[in-house]
């Protein structure tokens, strides 16, 4: 869940960053509202809103998992948009100009020059994103998606071994987060441009 949320969030976040930077004023304002909403309100509230109001509004039934994934994606995208935009802005005004000078279109410049470099800058920020998303999966409890915390709760209430069960849970979180961090580290070192140390 965390994993897919962050990956989908990356895709959406990238689009948002591009829209904000190059899409004109109106789009930029809309994106700003979107980001404010998802960054400014607690994840639990967002889950509630989507879980209870979307089926009513649209008249469709969606299962818990889908709601969870949608909200995670939207939420993660709001954060990642910030990192990606920052990365694109910081280094890439000049890179964009150089690409345009060759006759590349704006879209081509973004695709072949700006994004490949922005992604490399963003990877360290991703680690944080994964860690915080993994922790917030606990919020899914409220719409009863059987994520780790809720499983633990059930186990704890069966076994009455509350402390052990939750310690075990914490351990699993820890392992999961460090595995993801390690993978990101490997990806980062793999795509890193030789001789350039990127600090984000």
């Amino acid at each position: 869940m965390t994993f897919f949320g962050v990956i989908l969030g990356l895709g959406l976040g990238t689009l948002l960053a591009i829209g904000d930077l190059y899409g004109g004023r109106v789009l930029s304002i809309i994106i700003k509202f979107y980001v404010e909403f998802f960054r400014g309100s607690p994840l639990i509230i967002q889950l509630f809103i989507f879980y209870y109001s979307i089926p009513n509004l649209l008249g469709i039934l969606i299962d818990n998992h889908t709601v969870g994934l949608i909200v995670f994606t939207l939420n993660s995208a709001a954060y990642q948009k910030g990192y990606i935009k920052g990365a694109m802005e910081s280094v890439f005004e000049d890179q964009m100009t150089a690409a345009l000078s060759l006759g590349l279109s704006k879209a081509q410049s973004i695709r072949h020059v700006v994004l490949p470099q922005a992604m490399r800058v963003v990877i360290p920020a991703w680690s944080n994103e994964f860690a915080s998303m993994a922790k917030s999966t606990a919020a899914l409890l409220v719409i009863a998606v059987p994520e780790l915390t809720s499983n633990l709760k059930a186990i704890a209430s069966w076994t009455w071994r509350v402390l052990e069960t939750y310690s075990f849970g914490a351990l699993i979180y820890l392992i999961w987060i460090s595995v993801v961090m390690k993978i990101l580290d490997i990806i980062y070192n793999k795509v890193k441009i030789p001789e350039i140390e990127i600090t984000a």
Partner: protein
Amino acid sequence: MADTVLECRNLWKIYGKITAVKDVSLEVKEGDIKLVFGPSGSGKSTLARCLAMLTTPTKGEVILTGENLTRSGVDLNKARARIGFVFQHIWLFHHLTALGNVELGLRQVLKLPKEEARERALQALREVKMEGWAEHYPAQMSGGQQQRVGIARALAMNPEIIILDEPTSSLDPELTGEVVDTLRDLAQKGTTMLVISHEMTFAREVADEMIFIDEGAIIERGPPELFFTNPTSERARRFMARLIKRTRRE
């Protein structure tokens, strides 16, 4: 008479309160080498970028072989592909090798097939004597080598004119020589160029016309001999005196 490749008429660029380019008109003919110079902040880079339509002029016209680029509806990407540009601060693509830098425009803009793009990119690198560095990344090269790749990147597109914005000013003095040599080679081949530079020895050797700019406007223009012997304007006279003194010291 040779044909006019690139010209501007009554060009202005205004940033808020700053007038960076002030009513500049000039014309570069096929095979011409124009050398633009002037004090720091006088608007040289801005003029160069307007000519390449990398920024939109506030007023005036830019005309590339008869086509008015300042009209609306012009495909600027196509026009930019026909104008080579070499940047003051080099600006290679950091994530691509020398070869990748040169190939990008050939593949994405000219849509050449892989093999052909590679051949042509290697040829361009050869012309700037960087073919041995094809697989290296910018960060692994010296500034002079990077700038030569920058020149190859522009050259490979086979542009009708190359605009070079102070190609040696961000380099250590001992590295400027190799880049100036590359420029000399280009001049020898009859490349149409507008060069912003304060390399006065180079200017005297190759320029057909020198253009002195101050506070955004053309103050004086003429053959190098005019500037080296007896500039008319007081400002050009003083600036030349300073430049020549500096050249002697080096």
